[in-house]
């Protein structure tokens, strides 16, 4: 399994043709207390860069973009009952949705963990 990162502070785990997407620990830290996550329905298809989810903190609503193109095969139902899971475990149990990858070549421009750490350090 490989993990990729975007400049929009999303992480993507790729296993075969399925990509699991979430926001990074840095992102949840910036957002603060998360009170609601609006997730896409199964079967929704996204082009890379489409609005895919909305994360609501106490203070503000923020869009989460589809980091790559694909079809939603599952959303994390646990976030409906416990949106704060994104704060406590952003990069594992706080995942947002799984996509069936439409075009694996879109992964090529993304960062690996070391590159993302460097990117965040420079912010």
């Amino acid at each position, binding site marked *: 399994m490989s993990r990729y990162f975007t400049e929009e502070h999303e992480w993507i785990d790729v296993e075969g043709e399925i990509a699991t997407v979430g926001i990074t620990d840095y992102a949840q830290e910036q*957002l603060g*207390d998360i009170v*609601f996550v609006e997730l896409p329905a199964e079967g929704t298809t996204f082009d890379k860069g489409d609005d895919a989810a909305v994360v*609501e903190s*106490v*203070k503000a*609503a923020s*869009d989460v973009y589809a980091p790559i193109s694909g079809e939603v095969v599952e959303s994390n139902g646990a976030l*409906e009952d416990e949106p704060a899971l994104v704060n406590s475990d952003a990069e594992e149990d706080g995942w947002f949705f799984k996509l069936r990858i439409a075009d694996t070549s879109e992964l090529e421009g993304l960062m690996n963990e070391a590159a993302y750490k460097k990117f965040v350090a420079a912010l």
Partner: protein
Amino acid sequence: MSGTQDATHFEDLPLDALPLDAWHRARGARMVGFAGYHMPIQYDGIMAEHSWTREHAGLFDVSHMGQLTFSGEGVDEALEHILPSDIKGLKPFRQRYSMLLDAEGGILDDLMVSRLGNEAFDGADIYMVVNGATKYDDIGWIIEHLPDAVVMNHMADQALLALQGPEAGDALAALIPETADLLFMQSGLFTWRGVQLWISRSGYTGEDGFEISIPADDVTLLADALCELPQVKPIGLGARDSLRLEAGLPLYGHDLSPAVSTIGADLGFAIQKRRREEGGFIGHARVMKELADGPGARRVGLKIEGRLPAREGATIHIGATQVGEVTSGGFAPSVGAPIAMGWVSLPHSAQGTALEIEVRGKRIAAVVAPMPFVPHRYRRKA
């Protein structure tokens, strides 16, 4: 990710530093631009700070607000021209909520006004605290409408702290025992370590608490002394907003603006009977008309079904008809659910009216609810 809605920003203007700027940063505050200043939005997190204030005592730096004094021959008459509230009947060391109205009765700002008793601030008669984001406009408006004999002074060298929460009384009494006698909306001059403090028992959270005016040079010492007490933690603007929303208190520039009126805003309590009858203040005609005919729309509280917050700008509907707009909204930590404040046309503004709010193309159910959402706990007469 991108923020689609955010705290109020004064874009393109250089931000100024408040007297406690370094103090906030040293305590790990995340700073944002607000009302033209760098201000702390949060320290530990909005939810934790909100709960701390409801259970203990929170210290808020509100030094961005405008602190004004008035003195001179005819000061009461002059202020009764620009304020709709009873100033002549305002006793020494008493504070009152009021507002500036324009000629059409639209709200230019809301404010606190108190009579100093000629002890503080070089013997001035009246002390006023106005919103930070509007203070320079307010000053311009006031000067334009003030006779020459009345002198207004903007005390740019005064800082302002708010200490709020059920343990605020004990905390402040630990430093200044005499403050224990103050009741809600009373104020007085106190001395702490040789520094004169003008303190009122009031605030913007719905909790018991104080607002403390202190020279900017001394504010760091006081902020340190307060935060050394076990009851007190510094609280940012984020929790200030969620606390005041739960308390049903309007925020100028959001829930109040020149487009809306006092009566519609449910702030008629600020205009005492004599002022309504006698008039003689800017905006009086609108007040009287709306008292007689009712306002076109009212500021109401909204309880929201489910967990999705409805925020400022979301439209309010009944079926196909838009009947209003959300002016403040978010998750309410002490309620455990989203709440909102909004303006709804009069026929649909009664408590219990079922409404729908549109959030990102979806309709969520809401009902007009009484405010405050969390009961006020002011310290009134025993």
